[in-house]
């Protein structure tokens, strides 16, 4: 009985509405947390797993040695590698494709790599505008991503290294 009366009073005095407006009024003067993407971006953890990249050594030699451990460990079978002995006798890939539609960004490839060649960068804003086949990125593309973002990759790996 008492409860019903309380409820009636609250309803007729617009209690719910005033409560909501109170929050609106508070947020009106508070500091904004919205960012203006893509001009502004939120901070990303160094462990973020985005677009893949193949790295090089400082002397320009590609790191990948075609051991195919990433291909073996990939739970989504997203990686395809073909290898051969390069003219100088070293073991190298002739093909290194990642199908980004299949990839589940688990980061196992990075974990499996014995030479830190394949890494997942913080890049997440890529798109395949031309065709569905564009989802398969090849070795040249991966190396290009690596070359462009080596500084960022180095930085994030360094930040994360003390926890590993």
């Amino acid at each position, binding site marked *: 009985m008492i409860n019903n009366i309380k409820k009636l009073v609250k309803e007729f005095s617009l209690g719910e509405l005033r409560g909501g407006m109170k929050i609106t009024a508070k947020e009106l003067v508070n500091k904004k947390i919205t960012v203006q993407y893509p001009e502004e971006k939120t901070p990303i953890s160094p462990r973020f797993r985005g677009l893949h990249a193949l790295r090089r050594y400082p002397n320009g030699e590609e790191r990948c*040695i*075609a*051991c*195919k*451990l990433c291909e*073996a460990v990939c739970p989504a079978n997203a990686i395809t590698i073909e*290898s*051969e*002995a390069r003219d100088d006798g*070293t*073991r*190298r890939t002739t093909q290194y494709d990642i199908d980004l539609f299949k990839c589940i960004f688990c980061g196992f490839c990075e974990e499996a790599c*014995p*030479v830190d060649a394949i890494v997942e960068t913080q890049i997440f804003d890529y798109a395949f505008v031309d065709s569905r086949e564009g989802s398969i990125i090849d070795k040249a593309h991966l190396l290009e991503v690596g070359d462009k973002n080596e500084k960022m990759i180095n930085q994030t790996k360094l930040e994360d290294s003390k926890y590993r």
Partner: protein
Amino acid sequence: MADIEIEIDGNVVNAKAGEMLITVTDREGISVPRFCYHKKLSIAASCRMCLVDVEGAPKPQPACSTPIADGMKIHTQNEKAKASQKAVMEFLLINHPLDCPICDQGGECELQDVAMDYGSDVSRFTEGKRIVADSDIGALIQTDMTRCIHCTRCVRFGAEVAGIMEMGGTGRGEDLKIEPFLEEGIQSELSGNMIDVCPVGALTSKPFRYELRSWQMNAVSNIARHDLVGSNIYTQTYKGKVKRIVAKDNDSVNETWISDRDRFSYEGLAHENRLLAPQIKVEGTWKEVEWDVALDFATRGLANNVFNARQADKLGALASNTATLEEFHLLQKILREVGSENIDHRLNVKDLNNAISLESNIKLAGLEGVDHALVIGSNLRLEQPMINHRLRKANLSGTSIDVINAMAFDFNYQLNSENIISPNQIAATLAGVLKSVLQSAHAQIPAYLDDVEVTDVAVQLATQLSDSDNSVIILGEHVVNNPQALSIANLISQIAQNTNSTTLNVSASANSTAANLAGFVPGKGGLDANAMLAADLKAYILLDIYPQYDFHNSIQATETLSNDDTFVISLNSFKDDVVAGYSDVLLPIASFYETSGSHVNVEGLVQSFAAAVNAPSDAKPAWKVLKVLADLLELPGFHYADSTQVTSEVMHQSHKQHVHDESIDVKAKRGVNVIWQKSPYAVDVLSRHAASLQATKIGQINSASMNKATAKKLEVTQDGEYLGVPVVVSEAVANNCVFVNANHSTGGQS
């Protein structure tokens, strides 16, 4: 040996006294880690990985070299055993590089596997690791000797199985190196097995280098068809291509070994020369067409040239010796259905009235049990490596071996006597042997032996055969075109009968036993291969034939087949200019490992196999092509769903054996005799296209050998050529004989 009881890990196990402990644990399925122990090699006990704890022994004992005794109590898993195994593992890993990611053995490496169980996760070794320089040991084996753990399996393999000690250990301790003694590299015809026995990545396959990881491939059981043995193999495939071949165990056929020819010939499958699309020749130019168009063209051609004129006997079929049992059967069935008996596979025989027919009545494994062997006309080591291996094993346990050859070859065992006899004298010599055998048995001597002179050599050979309880006479390929081939074969069966010997006929090649089983020989009224080519037939069906290599007289054969009014249907797996020159239809067929079928080896063992991969592009298995061709010709009885139905049909039919000529001519002939022998790695079209095999020393054998007197008679010199083959003047060859080993196409031969 008495049965005794021992206790392993608390379980009582029965075993024979004197057996090595590791044999017992292997039989019982108890795992003991090992590197240097290999069941087919001698015991080295050098790796110490198999240390186990034997109660009463102060120190752990190596299981591979500890003979068991009654009441022995062994612990393979207790603390003492584990601790010593882990300690050994740590020492082995001190100098082993951590390059598993780039090592071809990675994923199938015994060291990797054992290190997972016994290795420590952290190395305590902080000093520098040793590095060993590699040496180039040929086109087949890649070395990375830094990875070597000195198990010496390859050294023991060379010394004990291959019979040529090519690898060896030099230096001691830290400086111990396993390396070839000579700079020429490894030259054994069984060298590829070193790759299989190497427990680490020190010896790996060179053609396969860095291509794939072991876990990427599917292994399909298969049969190698290059020789008369039919070695059991695994074809390892990836994305529809054969990428590697390794041996499969079969103690009654090839044990654990295979020859290099069986192992590396697969490279030819990917050769650019493969025939990929059906082609028809219209007004002299080749046109690629669909299968139905080509087959229709073929059947119309047969109708125009043969059937419409009711001249079925003007149709002939010839097949290469590498075809499968099913292909032989279907092709002869087509011919016999349409009413032609012109069927043959014996293309390299000069005179088919003089063809050898000698039964083989010994099993391959049985060769190890003989106490004496007489080898006639064969370079067994290179021509039939696995048969030679059995004989070598027998020889090591005391079998005496006599050889009658036209040239001194490099045998990898001790010969009792090597008789270098001109081909013209072989029949006379064997007649002497027979006479001597009969004389010593006080048997009646037939009239044809009256004038035969019994030489010292003949007496010695005869005594050996008569004195042994279990001897074998092996007849080889070099006798095929001997002017007295038939007499030689008949003399051998006479000698065998009178000395209680068994015989082994290795004069044929590849799958020709299957051809005989399927009845792929001319029937009554039919023409044999030579007669067919002389008779100017109207149409031919040719199965995987390359005239320059396959025919005895390739120039004459090519000329006959090139006749304008002759219609030639060629089923080929590889392109060939000469074939294209005379054919009217070219049908691309599957090569080795791309078709299902059966191989029949020299002892008559039928081994069926499935296709490991699909044939490339438009090529189809020949048995299917022949079946469809038969359907288009509206022949009855060709309703097969798969090749096994063909196989069972062959096995249920019986072809009448030829009544063969028993005549014996023992007179020594005159004149120079040419033995024309394809080089060991040029015996079939697949090996000829395998680049790595061709790059080996054996692959490059190409010479016409003769002695000085013969060279003078033929007016050739050391720098010259004979029949298009470079001349080698050597006194290793018998008088009046030219021994040709050709690895390339040539013109005719005398």
